[in-house]
């Protein structure tokens, strides 16, 4: 998948201009928020349930290697095949070869963000294997050659008109209709044929259970169940962090995932795979192949703070709560993962240098942290990434900060601990700042603050700071004089 993280500002601007999308996202945000809150209220103690989810994910990350080993052991004992891939190249090569060995012409795919990260579809198609996305949203954006707009609803921004025209052009929609039900039905028929004859299905993994070697998928449409049951070969792709200790933990996370994601108590289908089909079963995979993908995660794992980003269970609640996402939509984030979870993950997987905007285009408002069932502190991670740039921490492929900024903070540090110098600095800077002031209002200040003044004024710097005024205030109120030891005179 093409990486466009360096075009953040450009694409964000496009997103901002789209008043239609903006109105839609705003309306949707309120609706989704209410649904999530209602769903969480079915817990006797919603906050405790969220905290428990965070505990499970924290433990999963802390015990990652042991849990992966346990998962592999049990999966192998169940008769699954397990392939470990260091990176996208290895994962894609393996899956492409699997398909070619078997003479596979096409695969059906369940929605899997890790396969988008790997660029798996492109690799398959380059090698003559067609990859059909079958989740309706993914199917639509595949036909449109667009990236996902939202990790849960990848085509949620596409107008019904556009879908109609697309389906007329690409999938033989006969009646030009704007009824989403009819459009969905057309997609159902088209993809049904693919499910019928598919020989290899590729899906992601929501949760991998270490204790039993079980793979869990959560979906509403049924395309994942089809991709696992109709073909003779099932390939399930998971990134390292999908593993959890046991089934009770998995069930708790599934409850949280569904409520946080779509406001459902449970999604329509939760399918749990253990083994290939038994000999006497009439459908199901003869081969169950699990691909475990690293792609930079074992490197991230070396940093105790950064690896907290791996707690993510891909529920999308952070996207739904983010005021910035609401303005710019998903394309600006430039890769498989968007919104706050993309902002914490993409920089670690792609390097800080090419993802600068992802952890700087945030007000640190904390809405994401507030809804996260996995306990991720997004704002704190953003600050950590900024610190890594400043310290030039090589493992993260940082971008060195400019000399002006570094000089500024050198000066700032010197002054912050010396109040007389601080106040002197204020006095010296005031005439420059206030040069353009008119009736104590600044409408523009030359220099690096052009962004602010595009649409906002600023009060002129006060002729007397409060610091200056305090002495006068005290003199006006002699009973207020306080001695150095904080007692009254």
């Amino acid at each position: 998948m093409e990486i466009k993280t360096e075009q953040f500002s450009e694409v964000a601007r496009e997103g901002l201009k789209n008043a239609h999308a903006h109105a839609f996202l705003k309306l949707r945000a309120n609706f989704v928020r209410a649904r999530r809150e209602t769903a969480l209220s079915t817990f006797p103690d919603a906050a405790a349930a969220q905290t428990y989810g965070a505990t499970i994910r924290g433990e999963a990350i802390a015990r990652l290697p042991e849990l992966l080993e346990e998962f592999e052991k049990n999966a192998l004992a169940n008769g699954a095949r397990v392939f470990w891939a260091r990176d996208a190249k290895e994962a894609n090569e393996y899956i492409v070869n699997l398909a070619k060995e078997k003479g596979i012409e096409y695969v059906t795919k369940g929605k899997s963000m890790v396969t988008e990260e790997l660029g798996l579809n492109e690799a398959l198609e380059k090698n003559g294997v067609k990859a059909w996305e079958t989740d309706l949203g993914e199917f639509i954006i595949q036909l449109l050659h667009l990236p996902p707009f939202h990790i849960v609803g990848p085509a949620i921004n596409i107008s019904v008109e556009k879908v109609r025209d697309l389906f007329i052009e690409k999938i033989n929609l006969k009646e030009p209709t704007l009824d989403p039900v009819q459009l969905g039905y057309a997609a159902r028929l088209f993809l049904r044929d693919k499910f019928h004859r598919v020989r290899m299905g590729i899906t992601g993994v929501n949760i991998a259970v270490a204790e039993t070697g079980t793979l869990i998928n959560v979906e509403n449409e049924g395309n994942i169940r089809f991709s696992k049951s109709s073909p003779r070969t099932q390939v399930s792709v998971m990134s390292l962090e999908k593993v959890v200790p046991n089934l009770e933990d998995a069930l708790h996370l599934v409850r949280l995932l569904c409520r946080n994601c779509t406001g459902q108590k449970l999604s329509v289908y939760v399918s749990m795979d253990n083994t290939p089909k038994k000999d006497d079963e009439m459908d199901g995979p003869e081969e169950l192949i699990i691909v475990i993908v690293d792609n930079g995660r074992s490197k991230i794992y070396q940093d105790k703070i950064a690896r907290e980003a791996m707690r993510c269970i891909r529920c999308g609640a952070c996207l739904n709560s983010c005021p910035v996402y609401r303005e710019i939509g998903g394309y600006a984030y430039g890769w498989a993962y968007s919104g706050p979870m993309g902002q914490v993950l993409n920089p670690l997987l792609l390097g800080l240098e090419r993802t600068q905007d992802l952890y700087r285009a945030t007000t640190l408002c904390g809405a994401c942290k507030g809804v996260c069932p996995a306990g991720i502190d997004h704002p704190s991670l953003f600050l950590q990434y900024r610190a890594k740039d400043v310290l030039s921490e090589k493992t993260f492929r940082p971008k060195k900060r400019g000399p002006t900024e570094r000089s500024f903070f050198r000066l700032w540090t010197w002054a912050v601990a010396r109040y007389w110098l601080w106040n002197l600095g204020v006095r010296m800077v005031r005439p420059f700042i206030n040069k353009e002031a008119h009736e104590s209002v600044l409408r523009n200040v030359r220099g690096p603050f052009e962004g602010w003044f595009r649409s906002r004024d600023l009060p002129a710097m006060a002729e007397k700071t409060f610091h200056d005024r305090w002495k006068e205030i005290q003199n006006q109120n002699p009973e207020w004089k306080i001695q150095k030891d904080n007692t009254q005179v």
Partner: protein
Amino acid sequence: MEKVKQSARDEILSKLKSAPREAVASRPDRPVLKELSLIRDELIEMFSKNLVQETGVVHRVKDRQEALEKLSQIAQEERLKKVMIATDDVVAPLNLVDWGKKNNVEVMTPQDFGNRDSYVDAVFEETDAGITGADFAVAESGTLGLVHHRNRARLVSLSPILHIAIVPVERMVAVYEQAIEKVFGKKESLPSQFCFVTGPSMTADIRGIPFKGMHGPRKVIAILVG
């Protein structure tokens, strides 16, 4: 001596293991599952309410006889001509082949077909409804629990546009854990797949507008027996 290249598995695991480790915090108490305190009638009511909310249909019948009568009624309403049935421990005793003859419905089982591909063709193209039993009915969300095995093929409950599930009320449980305990209790006898199914297939991928029957069944009917 040539150094053998470390396998990807070993390389990844050793990298993870050599990272700074963290003491695992002790867990707080697992949150309480409030549904556990309900009695069966309350569970049945909760199950029905939840499934109906997802546009599922719930019928309560006394016994096998009434179940068959209900099926006749459904066959008429839904104009069923050909159905694919499971041969599991709930459906088998109903003798649906006989019922089908009496009700002008052609009743097929996966085993009727000599081979997998013919069965798959039939369940994709020629089936108006799939009829299966269920191993569990979970009250907390109106969810069916289906173990897949030789007598309950997967596509029977997934491919046809209508899924009819017959569930003895004794199999009603409050929460998912009670189903999972039974299914995953013995490591040696794990099923190939276990599914929780809550109502019809759905999507809201076009402009957030929800509708049913995306890829799986558009309608789900649960017949609670007992």
